């Protein structure tokens, strides 16, 4: 038995491209805009969401035959909230500074649509292993968009990457200025739009036919 059969492979790799939660399904946009002014919080957020979605998917998948249909959303929410609380507790104990940087956004993972979406759409109907891969795939699919946004916004908004000065002083002396608009949320949504545009232009099958 192959570790990655066709279906599990699709669960893992699909969200990176044609099933991307952010640029195809347009989920998790709010946090994608909010944490991407700098690259580092974007990376940490990407990791945190990946871990939480993967674990939440596994738990829901293991419980899928026991959960009463009427309360399934509440159960999903409880699993999500508990996992996020645990991540937050762990960060406070072992990565205090990172936790302070992410501030409110760790708590906001609970309300990330990707999390609820994957539990509802995938984990309730699939086994733990495919669900785990689906969670990892969607977390990474969300993550790479965040990293691209964070990279572009920090580089052109602050002239730095991960806090290190990238654009040399000579440029500033010659009259170059950081684009403050890059640091604001509206630019994040414009950049997301540009990514969606490029992605759809390259994948004709994603375009609606008239």
């Amino acid at each position, binding site marked *: 038995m192959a570790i990655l059969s066709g279906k599990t492979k699709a669960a893992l790799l699909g969200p990176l491209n044609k099933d991307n939660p952010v640029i195809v399904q347009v989920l998790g946009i709010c946090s994608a805009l909010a944490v991407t*002014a*700098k690259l580092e919080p974007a990376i940490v957020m990407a990791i945190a969401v990946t871990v939480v979605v993967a674990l939440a998917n596994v738990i829901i998948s293991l419980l899928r035959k026991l959960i*009463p249909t009427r*309360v399934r959303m509440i159960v999903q929410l409880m*699993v999500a909230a508990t996992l996020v609380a*645990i991540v937050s*507790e762990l960060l406070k104990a072992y990565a*205090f500074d990172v936790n302070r940087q992410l501030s409110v956004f760790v708590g906001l993972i609970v309300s990330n649509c990707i999390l609820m979406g994957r539990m509802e759409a995938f984990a309730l109907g699939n086994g733990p292993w495919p669900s785990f891969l689906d969670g990892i795939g969607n977390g990474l699919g969300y993550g790479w968009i965040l990293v691209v946004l964070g990279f572009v916004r920090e580089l052109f908004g602050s002239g730095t990457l991960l806090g290190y000065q990238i654009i040399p002083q000579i440029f500033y002396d010659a009259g170059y200025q950081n684009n403050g608009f890059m640091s604001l949320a509206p630019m994040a949504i414009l950049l997301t739009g540009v990514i969606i545009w490029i992605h759809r232009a390259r994948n004709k099958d994603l375009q609606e036919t008239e």
Partner: protein
Amino acid sequence: MEEKAMNRESNVYTILFSAIMVVIFALGLSLIHQTLRPKQIQNENVDTMRQILRSLNIEASAAEAEAKYAELIKNAYLIAPDGSKVVGTEGTQYYDRAFSAISRRDAAGLPVFEANVNGNTIFILPMRGAGMWAPIWGYLAVNADGNTIFGATFDHTSETPGLGDAIATQAFGERYIGKRLFQNGAFTSVSVVKPGASSLRGEDYVDGVSGGTITSRSVGVMMYQSIGAYENFLMNLQR
């Protein structure tokens, strides 16, 4: 597996399932919290020490903060509203009353930390206030003249990322160095103004952070109120 041993959609099953799940998750969470709590408190205390050091314009890593704090902070105590030291409250350790009064109001008085930097005595006064979304706080280091600012640092729980959260940067704290809290013998505090503007009543001022108007204003209000409570203490130093 016994097929359909219990109807999954019945009310009894739903209620039982929910109750059991809640108990299991709550127990697990509180267990994790209890296990990690000592480590978290330790982190918080070290972080407070780092912030106190930051007000002295010293950036210490988490690993070296405790040693540096022990080296520079010579005394800590509570003061009464008239500015006098409250007897029996001295001690710089995190379990002493001055340290715990930073995060929890102590009815006996306000905390003061005394540092010795290059032979000069510096007084560090904690500040607490309301930011745009949640609490903000900071530490103001005042020279022995009780008037000029030696250094300042600010922090927050959840000011707007990329905008108001800039109050926590070193660059913002450094704007306070050398500013005076008193003008002509009266406490005026230091206001935070829009870059390019000047203060209304002739007090010293610093530029706010761009895009963080409400947070900037909150910093000004916090300093006026928190340091205002130390007015008599600072006046006594000036005499």
